[in-house]
């Protein structure tokens, strides 16, 4: 399980999660619906550029990434995040249902793909798979 290492004092460290989506409602939905105690939401971003800024500050272990966003889209943002931190685990959450987009995202470095709309169960299963 990535990120669940212990630090020097033996305290279990949380997995840091960054949520990237241009919809405020969707960001709140993901934040509220995920049920993992070890996940700590360290930031939310509404576009790729904002995501990169928060990524620099918070160094998250996991990212949920929308694809269609203003300023910098998700595909480009994934490439940049993976360059910054190859070990980062990225779950793409997008309404773009075509397989080509999913393959493109995976090729850029995403680790999981979830289509919108999704149920809480689907979200948590996708996150669990990402964490394993």
């Amino acid at each position, binding site marked *: 399980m990535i990120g669940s290492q212990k630090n020097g004092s033996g305290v279990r460290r949380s997995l840091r999660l960054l949520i990237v989506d241009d919809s405020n409602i969707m960001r709140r939905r993901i934040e509220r619906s995920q049920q993992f105690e070890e996940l700590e939401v360290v930031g939310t971003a509404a576009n790729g550029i904002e995501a990169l800024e928060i990524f620099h500050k918070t160094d998250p272990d996991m990212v949920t990434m929308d694809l269609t966003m203003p300023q910098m889209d998700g595909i480009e943002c994934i490439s940049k995040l993976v360059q910054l931190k190859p070990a980062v685990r990225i779950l793409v959450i997008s309404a773009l249902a075509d397989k080509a987009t999913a393959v*493109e995202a*995976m090729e850029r470095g995403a*680790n999981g793909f979830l289509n919108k709309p999704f149920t809480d169960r689907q979200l948590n299963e996708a996150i669990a798979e990402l964490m394993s």
Partner: protein
Amino acid sequence: MNVAGADRNRRLITAGAGTALALVMGLALLAGFRLATQIRSSITALQTASELQTYPSVLTQQLTALRQRLETREYTGQAHEELAGTVARFNSDIRRLTKRSDGQSPQLQDAARMWQAYRPVLAPILAFSGEPYIDTDSGSSLSDGGKMYYGDVRQAQLLAKQNVGRLHRLLTAVTDSLEEQTSGAAARLRELLSGGVLAALVLAAAALYLQLTRARHERVAREAQEQTRDILKTVREGFFLLDADYRIGTVWSEALTHIFGRSDFAGLSFEKLLEDRVPPGTLATAVKYIKLLWGDRAHENLMKSINPLGQLEISMDNGRGGKETRYLQFDFHRVVGPKGGVKHVLCSVGDITSNVLLAKELQEAQENANAQVDMMVGMLHVDPLQLGSFLDTTETGLRLINAILKEPARTDAEFRKKLGGLFRELHSIKGEASALNLMSIAHRVHHLEDTVGELKKKAELSGNDFLPMVLKLDELLAHLRGVREMATRLTALKPGAGSTAEPAAAPSRPTGAHTVRRSGEDLSPILQALAEKLAKDHRKSFRLSLSGLADVPAAYLATVKDCVIQMLRNSAVHGIEPSEARRVQAKADVGAVRVDFRRSSEGYELMFEDDGAGISPQLLKDAAVRKNIITAAEAASMDTRTAMALVFRPGFSTQDEVTMDAGRGVGMDVVARTVYGLGGKIGVSTNPGRFTRFKIVLPPAGEARSGERADRMSGPQGLPPGMASGVA
């Protein structure tokens, strides 16, 4: 079972056992050879010892005989010789025995020492030569030499007699010892030979076992191979393995050959397999996906869920020189090697064309069923008279289309003229069908329009190009018959059916080119329904006000309806702005469309007006240039009035995308042509941003040219002469 591993172990065991047994056999043979050599030596020694054993007594006897002969003065020569021979053999034999390395028994050494004691005694005897007797008159007597000789013999005889027993025992003991040695060696040799035979038996048994095992393994492997071959031959899916270079391995199922129509798969890259059969974008995605399979970033389930080749549309040769579309389903499974990591990717591919086509058929059937229900529901809301009128008019229209199709034509221009006529007629039918919300008919006509549109794009036209039209037309006619039948049934169900003087339950089929219409037929419900639908479809908000339509004479009913429908569509698509845009221009959110029909001094006047965006002459010119109706130079020199007249040109539309309601460029030219056909006039005036107003003047009904529908199919291609236009 790991066949390869078992086979390797079997070979190792075979080699090990074979080597060990060969070593054992070699050692046994070597030891046997040594033992045999030893036995042979022992036997020789034993023979010697056996002979030697007799010598002491023989020697004693010979010495005794020699002494007696000397005493009796007999001839001693032979006895002397025999003694000399015995001594020589004794010497030789005992020397041979003592030379043997393994024959140095204490008894032999004692016997040798004892024999040494004989030597000095026997030496003078053996050295004697000459005559031992002297013959005298009194007889023979011993000579001096003979006396000495006799004395030596007597001494030797005494020694021999004295030692014969002991020497014999010693030599017997030597013989016994040698016998013991020989029999011991023989026993060991027997044991060795037994061991050798046993080892040989074990070796033979092992060889037999290994041979049997090998045969069994070979049989199992052969059977496995045959089964694999049978599976690959019988299975309906194409199976193959991809290596790390994304190339197909050397084994694949026979179905793959049928699916792809080729058999040279070995070493073929996956990209090459699909190249030229799928669009480049799809191919690129497929290749990316295959590469992802070799990584460990994504789980098997996720990879399965994003498989872009789950239903792949592929273009294949149909074997008759043409192409056909087929649908293939690819599945991919990672084959993990013994040390982890992806070793191969197993691909299965199936031809799911029939499934896909069946699904499409089912979907179409479902859509048809839904459309039938929708239509039935829609028909329940349509006035039976209007429906009957529509069906009559449409059938007449379709007959006209048939007539157009049958018209002899040879030149490209004639064919294109045909297309223009077809287009306008179809557009008119579609408009009426939409107005009545008979969408199944409207959609079918729309598809017919698509076919005509495709033909228009062709560089050269021939009579054969129109054949698909005929088929689709037949289908549409069949559908119309179905609608008519349904209408009959529905009308029969309606309360009060048959009580009216002219029941609409059985809308009469037209008996000629014209249908006799009742005067005062109310167009309002159709137009209001159409306005509602258009507003909804185009997300516009407007109110339609109608006045005077009840006064439309029967002869003009269809014309007025067609014209208003077309202008209403134009208003909904181009004229009325979205509410937000209207608000910005300080207009009321809800647009207004007004239709007014009245008698006038010239006959009748139909006014159609909307408070929408109006028409910009410049936009008209731009669109006309874009559609190649006029050149840029013509546009530049065109005055406003002529520019406004562009809306009446065949093929003109400001919209680039074709929809159900606009974009084909047939519409206002139909209106204009119809009006002109009836001997009327049409004019347009507009104020960009404020309004658009069409004014149609029709002659008194009695003076109208006959065959209103037929007329709108003919006439010159240019601007109708009775047309006026302007910008307010």
